[in-house]
């Protein structure tokens, strides 16, 4: 359990930078439809594991970066990510005891709420997009959670020990 230890800021920063790079990467269109939202699982991982350092405000800032990268209205993703972070903080106790695959089941509704907020704001500002493309990347992201969280946790453990 690394939630009660201090992980180096450099590791958090690097993992987030990697997640942002993964989503700005140019991709073939067929793959882009399924391409997971790496930043969501990364941000939620740090919110879960380092809630004191990486809370709602940090999640919001990450969302703002996404808005700049995607060219969406500023703080559309910010608001959605902050809400998701809030939910993860509220659910932290069961999440801490669950193994990763069970965490996935609990995180799925959180990410669906996240997608719904984006979808809702899209509707308000009049941006119509195919619903499948709005929802699918979130779901594939959550499905990758066990592997992603496992990997990040191993690296974080090494980081904490050294």
């Amino acid at each position, binding site marked *: *359990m690394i*939630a*009660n230890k201090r992980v180096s800021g450099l590791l958090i920063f690097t993992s987030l*930078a990697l997640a*942002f*790079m993964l*989503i*700005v*990467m*140019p*991709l073939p*269109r067929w793959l*882009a*439809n399924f*391409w997971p939202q790496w930043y969501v699982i990364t941000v939620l991982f740090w919110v879960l594991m*380092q*809630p*004191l350092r990486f*809370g*709602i*405000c940090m999640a*919001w800032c990450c969302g*703002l*970066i996404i808005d*700049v*990268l*995607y*060219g*969406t*209205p*500023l*703080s*559309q993703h*910010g*608001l959605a990510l*902050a*809400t998701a972070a*809030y939910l993860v*903080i*509220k659910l932290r106790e069961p999440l*801490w*005891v669950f193994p990763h695959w069970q965490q996935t089941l609990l995180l799925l509704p959180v990410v669906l709420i996240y997608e719904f907020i984006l979808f809702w*704001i899209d509707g308000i*500002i009049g*941006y*119509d*997009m*195919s619903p499948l*493309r*709005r929802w699918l990347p979130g779901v594939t992201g959550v499905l990758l959670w066990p592997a992603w969280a496992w990997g990040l946790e191993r690296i974080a453990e090494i980081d904490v020990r050294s």
Partner: protein
Amino acid sequence: MRGLSDDDKLPLLSRRFPMGLRLLLVAVVSIALMMFDSSHNAMAPIRSSLSVAMQPLQVLVEAPADALAYLRRFSNRGQLIARNDALSRKVLLLQARLQRLSALEAENERIRALLESSQDRRQEVLIAGILSASANPYQHYITLDKGSLDGVYSGQVLVDANGIMGQILSVTPTNSRAILITDANHAIPVEINRTGLRTIAEGTGKSGQLHLPFLPKSADIQEDDLLVSSGLGGRYPSGYPVATVSEVAHPPGSEFLAVTATPTARLNHGEEVLLVWRQKPALRVPLGNPALATIVPLAPELDELKLPVAASDAP
């Protein structure tokens, strides 16, 4: 299991500031930001400075592709010779056409001078490289490697060798983001080249497809008709090819035709685009026209400018 055995060491959440209140605060700030961002253009400088800060990320992502492109430039001698031959043939052909064009241009200018209209047909262009295509599959955006330092402005039109591609949405000092005509939020005023019928072509969000929603069933339009920009709205220059009609359907029960068109520009290919500077739209009215007499008193600055009025919607 992991965790809860050492309860006393579990991180306590900050009690000074409850989480719910924190979320509420963030939500209020977010909504205010979004309202500012969508209604006024007040957030443009913030957005632009944030994207400058994101620049290293973009560069890092592009690095492997750039390296590959660099390696691909080493081609073998045979290919180079063949390519060179093809290009010189093309130059010859184009030069022949250019001679005719310059004669036409001269003639056009003389005729325009006769009409006392000063519309300049020559246009300034700049070649810009495409840095990346939309990071987001929902949006048909591209990022270009020219920005406000090169004189690029938001609303500027980009074309390729075959037709109109789109327009600039936002500009940072060193690069800019453009929306393509196939984006679902984009529409361009066009006219059918064969008949001169004016309409609007909307993007569909699918690559390589536009649709024309406002054509009545009686409209004269066929497959393979060329759509050119009509220049209405003042954003796009007139007369550039936009798309060719690919399908004309008559849905029963609808008052309108369902027309789809394929953009002539190669939106998903190529690495370079041309940025076109806005022509000053001239009032296409000869001086003797009585209609002008009613316009001039309303706009005193027209007197100094004689005829052309600079487009005032430049941001």
